[in-house]
């Protein structure tokens, strides 16, 4: 008797997810899933709750209603932490340290992808020369690129990227799109927010639109 193995559960899925602040609904109920190799783009104007949605998915805020699942299991520290990489408005890097030191610290927490080093990741994002400069001497766009380098450096199947195009020029935008495409081709998934001013490269990506 042939039994087919069940299809792989989506890396991340949300079922009737909603959130309110001060009893004002911020978003929801939302249903979506993110499977291996997929990208979801969350669009909406400023104040529409895109960042809040991402923070709820990352576990920084508790959902008001609904549930989140990682690999089919209800979201918990064990199945989320170590499998999710977060790049928010604030890059999570200290200005007094160099890119190498910041990347080294985060790699110390999250681990290093096989074959990657801080130097190779910085080269990939195009600012290898700045690896030992204190971050405060870098421009906002360069700091964003260091944040992108961090995504390459540590393993994590699900990328939660909040406005990754912010502060970047045309080349930077292309870089983000390329990195996301490579990540998804390698089996990862990405959920990206944008206020819609940027043309998203992946035409197969699903869109979620949040109204303010």
């Amino acid at each position, binding site marked *: 008797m042939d039994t087919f193995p069940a299809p792989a559960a989506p890396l991340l899925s949300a079922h009737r997810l909603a959130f309110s602040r001060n009893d004002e609904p911020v978003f929801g109920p939302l249903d979506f899933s993110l499977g*291996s190799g997929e990208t979801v783009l969350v669009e909406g104007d400023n104040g529409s709750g895109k960042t809040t949605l991402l923070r709820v998915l990352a576990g920084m805020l508790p959902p008001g209603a609904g549930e989140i699942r990682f690999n089919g299991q209800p979201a918990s520290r064990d199945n989320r*932490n*170590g499998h999710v990489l977060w790049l928010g408005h604030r890059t*999570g890097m*200290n*200005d007094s340290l160099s890119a190498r030191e910041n990347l080294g*610290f985060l790699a110390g927490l999250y681990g290093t992808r096989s074959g990657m080093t801080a130097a190779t990741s910085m080269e990939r994002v195009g600012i290898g020369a700045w690896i030992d400069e204190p971050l405060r001497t870098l421009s906002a766009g360069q700091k964003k690129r260091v944040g992108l380098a961090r995504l390459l450096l540590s393993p994590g199947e699900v990328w939660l990227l909040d406005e990754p195009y912010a502060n970047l020029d045309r080349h930077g935008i292309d870089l983000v799109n390329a990195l996301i495409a490579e990540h998804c081709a390698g089996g990862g998934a990405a959920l990206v927010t944008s206020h819609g001013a940027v043309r998203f490269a992946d035409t197969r990506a699903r869109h979620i639109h949040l109204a303010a």
Partner: protein
Amino acid sequence: MASTAQSMHDDRVARGRRSSGTSASAACIALLRRDLVLAWRRRGELFLPLLYAVIVAALFPFALGPDPELLARIAGGVLLVIVVLAMLPALESMFRVDLEDGTLEQWLLAPQPLALLALTRVIAHWLTTVLPLVVVMPLLGALLNLPVKVLPVLIVALLLATPLLVLLGSVLSALAAGARRSGILLALMLLPLAVPVVIFAAGAIAAAQAGMPFIAPLTWLAAALILAIVLAPLACAAALRIAVES
């Protein structure tokens, strides 16, 4: 067909797997190194609490008159109070920078328990801001005419009391970090909780100075310290989660 889909999925996921360990100890060392490097970059600032302690200690003979017996009587307690006050400014900003630049968000999503990272931060904080104070104790003791035989007891009392205060302070600092305007709030919250610690530490020093047994208050401090090492990081982690929530 379906089986190859599953194995392809597994392959893709496996390609992202860690190569170097992210064991808890490796993570703690990474955090410790980061904090120590940051402290070294600001090493000029770290002298300020020391200078403050020395100046305040020097003020007492001026304020109370140079009567050596009077100074010797109050020296132990005064030194303890000076150390507590000198610790306050640094405690206030224990988590502030990391909250503002988003580092705490990365802590929250790290594979390691948040409480463990909090405990590591406490250790780093103690090493960089409190240890120098303890090292300067003999000098401060001399300024206040502290009997030399009491100095070891003073050091031991400080080695027990100050980590306890940093652990307590970490919880309060994390709570206050989430508030927009906190100002002197941390001092107001910490000082009452510091009272029992000061009482026991000063009690040990006074007992030693009078030639009486001083082990009991020190063991109380040690017991409280052990309890705090276990509980404070958990409370600190809970407070950090509240702070990141905004």
